[in-house]
């Protein structure tokens, strides 16, 4: 029986990044409870929204969650249902998924706990135009960015630029016919975009940053940890994620004013954690995006940051 846990982790069984933090909580003898979406149906669950008590009973584990004891909630679930499985014709599966997702969001009854991150804040912060607006207001340099579904109207914003970045407004990922598909950021010639079809759905069109070094800034509470991502020290053209294991990751000394902006941005968006992508060209730092649910466990083996320890400490408060 886990009676009145101090820390609650809402995630998936296959979210193995969590395991590194849970190990720290276990070693520190913190009373935590991990609830995975796959395991909900194994429990007999009740939620009392007035008393703010959630109880669950199963053969292997029982728990009682109350507001008084619940210090923090690490929320690692989506904020809304993205239906990505085009093969799915089983209504019952969609029904269960949708209702359980709403149940997960119901944990917002625990208003007094520290949320990392609160789903309402994540929902807003994931919106790319909104995060660009806030970053710009905080003084970040931003590559010229337009959202458009018109292959002609966007041109007036990029008069002297021949090549442009095109990317999806929201993550574009789906499954169909036993394959999984992703759309990555790509650089196109302006003429190509002009002759392409955009009208069915808007895209982000952005000034390209050439000869950039990519940076990932992981903001955890009041601190930020930066790594550079390069092709053996050389800039990576396009999306660095396509290089995977071939990219080189190193600790990077971010100027203090940029580091402070990253922390301010995270707070302004109502977040305690954020994974920020920057690009640096000759000492000018450009904001690209912030991901409230960005992965971090891949960074620790390349650095001395100990992000697992930092996240555990943030949860413990």
């Amino acid at each position, binding site marked *: 029986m886990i009676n009145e846990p101090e820390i609650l982790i809402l995630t998936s069984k296959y979210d193995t990044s969590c395991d590194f933090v849970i190990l720290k909580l276990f070693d520190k003898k913190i009373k935590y409870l991990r609830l995975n979406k796959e395991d909900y149906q194994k429990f007999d669950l009740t939620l009392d929204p007035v008393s703010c008590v959630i109880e669950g009973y199963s053969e292997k584990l029982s728990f009682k969650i109350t507001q008084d004891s619940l210090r923090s909630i690490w929320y690692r679930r989506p904020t809304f249902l993205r239906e990505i499985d085009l093969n799915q014709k089983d209504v019952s599966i969609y029904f269960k998924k949708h209702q359980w997702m709403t149940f997960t969001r119901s944990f917002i009854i625990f208003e007094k706990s520290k949320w990392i991150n609160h789903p309402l804040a994540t929902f807003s912060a994931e919106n790319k135009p909104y995060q660009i607006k806030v970053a710009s207001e905080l003084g970040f340099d931003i590559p010229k960015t337009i959202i458009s579904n018109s292959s002609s109207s966007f041109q007036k914003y990029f008069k002297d630029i021949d090549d442009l970045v095109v990317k999806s407004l929201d993550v574009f990922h789906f499954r169909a016919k036993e394959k999984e598909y992703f*759309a*990555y950021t790509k650089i196109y010639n302006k003429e190509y975009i002009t002759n*392409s079809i955009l009208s069915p759905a808007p895209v982000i069109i952005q000034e390209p940053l050439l000869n950039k070094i990519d940076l990932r800034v992981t903001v955890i509470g009041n601190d930020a940890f930066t790594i550079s991502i390069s092709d053996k020290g050389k800039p990576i053209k396009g999306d660095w994620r396509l290089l995977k294991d071939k990219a080189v990751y190193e600790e990077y000394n971010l100027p203090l004013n940029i580091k402070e902006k990253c922390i301010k941005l995270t707070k302004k968006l109502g977040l305690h954690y954020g994974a920020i992508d920057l690009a640096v060209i000759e000492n000018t730092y450009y904001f690209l995006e912030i991901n409230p649910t960005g992965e971090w466990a891949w960074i620790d083996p390349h650095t001395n940051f100990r992000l697992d320890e930092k996240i555990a400490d943030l949860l413990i408060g």
Partner: protein
Amino acid sequence: MNNLNHILFQNLKSFNLNPKEPKPSNAFYDISKGAWISIKTNDFLAKLPDVERPSTKKNDVETGEDLKSE
């Protein structure tokens, strides 16, 4: 695949869908500890030096770990 002839469909990267559950190999899930346990050591899998670590969401497609969408 280019259902709409939209520019985003022109550069899709595809991966084979892994029909299996994306569970770590040689481990079982301990629901009371809330973590994967190594079958070999009977201790937290996260303690092993060579344990696989999730990278970006797109890079995790091979293991099916795409939490953001689901």
